[in-house]
């Protein structure tokens, strides 16, 4: 059906794959910020700046790639990923520190005010980074495909629209799925999803640093489940983003994954505000 416009299927496939990764991040952030006033603006701002960033990165792709003795794009990807990890971790820690304060507010207004202080900019930044990384590949792909002349613009547009729609639909599915979690568990569930998202990103960042020859691999293919579930398959790709599934991880990736969970988990626990009545100062850490 799609091939009525030749070239629309490959376009749809590539666009879908890249959009999906960013859409899953957006879906998780949306679930984690449910009910927060003004979160829509932050999310849209993140997506918007991510799109602009993606165009810029695509424009300077070659300059980035050839920087640092040809390791520029690996370094860039790693930095983007680790920045996102930092932002996600910061958000978890903040929530842990202030979560009780928020829960203890007696009135809806008080709660809204306390929650309004949440560092939504951190999550907005995470979205921007995810959209930037995936978006730059889409821009480069679309530009190349269009310039290649084998695919007509309508086919490219149709394929991209389908890919975009499909990716967004799956991101939405994750969000709606998370909304079915009872309110009293939603916070814990989304916190864990954010921690695993961060751990997966840290492992991905480590892989890029190995590729850039800045980190030892500590053994490649510690396990190989690529025959059982490849990241190229839809479920594999979704798990790759959500929990950091890697069919053939190197040792250092596993280390980064576990260390990230450990650090964020430890800081979240260590900096948890004590169960004091609202308004009193927290004990020094």
């Amino acid at each position, binding site marked *: 059906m799609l091939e009525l416009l030749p070239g629309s299927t*490959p376009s749809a*496939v*590539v666009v879908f*794959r890249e959009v999906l990764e960013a859409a899953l991040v957006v879906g998780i952030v949306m679930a984690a910020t449910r009910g927060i006033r003004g979160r829509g603006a932050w999310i849209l701002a993140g997506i918007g700046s991510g799109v602009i960033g993606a165009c810029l990165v695509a424009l300077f*792709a*070659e300059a980035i*790639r*050839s920087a640092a003795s*040809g390791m520029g*794009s*690996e370094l860039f990807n790693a930095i983007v990923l680790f920045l996102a990890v*930092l932002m996600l*971790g*910061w958000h978890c*820690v*903040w929530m842990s*520190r202030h979560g009780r304060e928020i829960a203890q507010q007696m009135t809806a207004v008080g709660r809204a005010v306390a929650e309004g202080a949440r*560092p939504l*900019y951190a999550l907005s930044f995470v979205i921007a980074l995810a959209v930037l990384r995936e978006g*730059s*590949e889409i821009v*480069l*792909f679309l*530009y*190349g*495909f269009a*310039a*290649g002349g084998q695919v007509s613009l309508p086919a490219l547009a149709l394929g991209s629209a389908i890919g975009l729609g499909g990716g967004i639909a799956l991101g939405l599915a994750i969000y709606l799925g998370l909304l079915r979690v009872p309110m009293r568990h939603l916070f814990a569930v989304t916190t864990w999803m954010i921690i695993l998202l961060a751990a997966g990103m840290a492992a991905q960042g480590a*892989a*890029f*640093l*190995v*590729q850039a*020859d*800045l*980190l*030892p*691999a500590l053994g*490649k*293919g510690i396990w*190989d489940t*690529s025959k059982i579930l*490849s*990241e*190229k398959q839809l479920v594999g790709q979704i798990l790759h983003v959500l929990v950091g599934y890697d*069919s*053939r991880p*190197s040792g250092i990736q596993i280390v980064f994954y576990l*260390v990230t969970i450990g*650090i964020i988990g430890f*800081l979240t626990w*260590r*900096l948890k505000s004590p169960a004091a009545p609202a308004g009193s100062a927290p004990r020094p*850490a």
Partner: protein
Amino acid sequence: MIVIIFGSENMRMMAKASLTALALIAVAALHPAAAQESYVLTIKDHKFDPAEITVPAGQEVTLVVKNMDDTAEEFESETLDVEEVIGGGQEASFKIGPLEAGTYEFVGEFHEDSAKGNVVVQ
């Protein structure tokens, strides 16, 4: 915004943790040097040439991918742990291995129908 991020005790602790991790990485990164053998792969008309290369097992080798097309291609291999967008007319090199005997697939993600190949390790 920088003041907000860095001005609090939480962020200072996170920064300390991150810096410690980075220091460990720097130490760990001191590992023996470069690969000897180089294998060249070209991308032309969105196909790899050669589509199959054979490399020896158990050692690190360098794979040079030259994109002779006008437009970008994303070279990717799940099993070789390699992923990079290579612009038209540009080239990129990757260190792969040491690898166990077997077949490792790679693709050009932007043109997956035609751009595929294997690295056979023996």
